[in-house]
């Protein structure tokens, strides 16, 4: 081929550093927001500035955080999961069925595997409903949310189930690293795994590709049905882990709980900068998003502000986060 003037005036290649800063500006922003909120409470709430409070926040954000990690993949595909809240409760009830002395009383190892399988199965059902039957994610998971809530109540007979298995309780409350609760450790480890999965594996890459342009991805020869289903299965496993952290912490399950948790999960993901339109996702953002939610809760609590107001504040934070993201996105795509 002949060369002409057209190809030669290519602008200078961006340096790696400036590219890194540009691509991670969202993370920086979310992180700055977390610090800002944290510093505010250090002045506004007595006793807030203690390491134990910080660890407490991380520990309490762990179960929503872990579920939000999985939800990040779903939202990256442009989907949504409304069943993660009551689904978590159903998995926790099943944990009681498997492990409680009044029920099956299985050994811990086998019980844990079954618990994760229940989560995966729920994810599989969501995935098949969406990618094979072609239901919109909103509807498919809305239905699953109701089914899960119903099943949790039916199986438990509407009564509290206690899981006194000491190994199980240790999963959340033990300290493999002295001073750090296992729940925190699991949250950190799962965040690293999710980060690797999103950025370095086919599952993550295809999730983002599907969210960017599902049809173009399909016509590139990618088995979109399979990968989309896998995304929901993955999220189901993360949900089951969240259920373990949630129920192991106190050693019992209230089968009527979990309603509305899905909104906390979605809020954590969205605050973190993952786009609800799909095609863009960010694991560190999700972690920080979960921390922001919990920091607000704890801080307002310590300022003796009523729980109702926490909801208001959280809602406003979600609005601000999404708005900032939209502004940023508009700027990025303006040519």
């Amino acid at each position: 081929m002949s060369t002409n003037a057209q190809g030669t005036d290519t602008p200078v290649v961006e340096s790696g550093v400036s590219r890194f800063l540009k691509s991670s500006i969202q993370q920086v922003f979310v992180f700055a927001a977390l610090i800002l909120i944290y510093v505010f409470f250090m002045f506004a709430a007595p006793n807030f500035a203690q390491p134990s409070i910080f660890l407490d926040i991380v520990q309490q954000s762990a179960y929503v955080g872990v579920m939000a990690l999985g939800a990040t993949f779903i939202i990256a595909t442009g989907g949504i999961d409304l069943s993660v809240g009551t689904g978590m409760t159903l998995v926790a009830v099943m944990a009681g069925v498997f492990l409680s002395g009044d029920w099956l009383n299985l050994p811990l190892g086998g019980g844990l595997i079954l618990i994760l399988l229940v989560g995966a199965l729920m994810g599989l059902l969501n995935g098949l409903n969406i990618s094979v039957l072609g239901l919109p994610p909103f509807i498919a998971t809305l239905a699953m949310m109701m089914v899960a809530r119903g099943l949790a109540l039916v199986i438990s007979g509407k009564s509290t189930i206690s899981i006194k298995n000491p190994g199980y309780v240790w999963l959340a409350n033990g300290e493999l690293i002295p001073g750090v609760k296992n729940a925190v450790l699991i949250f950190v480890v799962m965040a690293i795994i999710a980060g690797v999965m999103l950025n370095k594996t086919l599952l993550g890459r295809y999730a983002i590709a599907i969210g960017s342009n599902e049809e173009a991805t399909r016509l590139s020869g990618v088995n979109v049905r399979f990968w989309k289903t896998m995304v929901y299965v993955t999220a189901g496993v993360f949900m089951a882990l969240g259920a373990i952290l949630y129920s192991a912490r106190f050693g019992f399950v209230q089968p009527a709980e979990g309603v509305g948790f899905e909104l906390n999960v979605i809020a954590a993901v969205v605050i973190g900068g993952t786009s609800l339109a799909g095609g863009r996702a960010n694991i560190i953002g999700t972690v920080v998003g979960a921390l922001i939610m919990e920091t607000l809760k704890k801080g307002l609590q310590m300022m003796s502000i009523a729980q109702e107001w926490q909801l208001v504040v959280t809602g406003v934070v979600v609005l601000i986060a999404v708005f900032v993201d939209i502004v940023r996105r508009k700027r990025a795509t303006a040519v």
Partner: protein
Amino acid sequence: MTKLLELKNVSKTFPGVKALQGVHLDLNGGEVLGLVGENGAGKSTLMKILTGIYTPDPGAEIWLQGQKVDVKGVNHARDLGLSIIHQELNMVPDLTVAQNLFLGRPGSHSKGIVNERKLNEMAGELFDKLGMNINPKAYIRDISVARQQMVEIARALSYDSRILVMDEPTAALTLAETDALFGMIRDFVTPETGLIYISHRMPEIEEITDRVSVLRDGQYIGTVTTKDVEMREIISMMVGREVSGDARPRTTVDSDEVVLKVEGLNTKHLLRDISFEVRKGEVLGFAGLMGAGRTEVARAVFGADPKQSGEIYLHGKKVNIRAAADAVRAGIGYLSEDRKAFGVLLEQDIKQNAVMAAMKDFNIGGFILDGKIKTVGQEMSDKLRVKTPSVNQLLGKLSGGNQQKVVIAKWLVRNCDVLIFDEPTRGIDVGAKEEIYQLIEQLSTQGKAIIVISSELPEVLRVSHRIAVMAHGHITGILDNADANQENIMELATVGKAQVDGAAA
């Protein structure tokens, strides 16, 4: 006499890119001015500045009939009588013609109540005045693209536009519809009005414009009077070099080996008994009018749409293609006519788009080899001369021609034996077109079996060794390039129902 419109010293800088540099443009009353240039030359940017979508860099001046104006935004531009009809139509498919016509403008409602009958009446009057035969009550989704375009034109004219800009208006039109459009353009232009016509199609520029202004790489190159110059000279101004007029393939097919064979292909609605074969190193062109079923053949072969019956053989072996994934696995690549919807991931970068069809070669046990993706992406980007600062650039920020190169890269990385190009140069400028033809030629000499679907006959004749002509879902004939010319292709393309419809050119 004062000019109807003068643009002076217009520059526009985007972060990292100087899209326009000191561009000048003038338009006389009663004139159709052609605006040409390769993709990325700055035509659209210039027109977006004129119509208030972009703000120019300081120092730019816009003069309307001798008065300096400061275009503050889209509505202000409209009040000044500046209207643009974009390449992509802006209409709501689920509303009627009349509803779209009056969407968002004063007089469309009184105190929030829409008077449907009045809208239809007003629309009917407008169409009568313009000599358009369009039903105001029809839903946009039910009328052809050509008619949608007429509605857009009517909308622009109803704003009492003095200056109308048309950006690639004929991209989706048939010859007859294009003629009708030209009639309308001639009616529109009076001594008080002028029209700026953007197109890549030189025959249209030759037919409809009085003068032609040329941009290249954001700079103003010059303006010529259409009847005084050959189109070839304008093309040279656009690309900055001479373009050869050679209109036939320079290669021959040496092999007898049939790579792709399609037999008795039928689909539910359109295709009837489609059979053809493509040999190793051969380019088989598909010509035909819009709606003849060319794209449908491609999509059915590729597994993007379901077949009713029919067999596909690759290298003599029957293959079962039920989904795009099967076709890609078998070694068939498809470049869609609609890049944005079916070809690219606009929010992902060049390197990721380039390897999208071949991810199986870029992972080990599910873990992605980003280093390899970067290397291969860079290699392909260099080889196809994608104009970009880096392979980390998002596809959405590239021009159409460069996006198309990335789609080609995608199938080259996949190393497919069969490549189906559906309108490979749609919306691509003249210089880059020839580049893509050469690329297709190169690929065929490497032994690939290639199908090229095109609505532009010179393009089909330029690249194809043989040409299959379609009409109404049938293949009406397959011609050797040596025997083919525009006339006998058109003859085959307009048989059957076409004559009844009176669509013959």
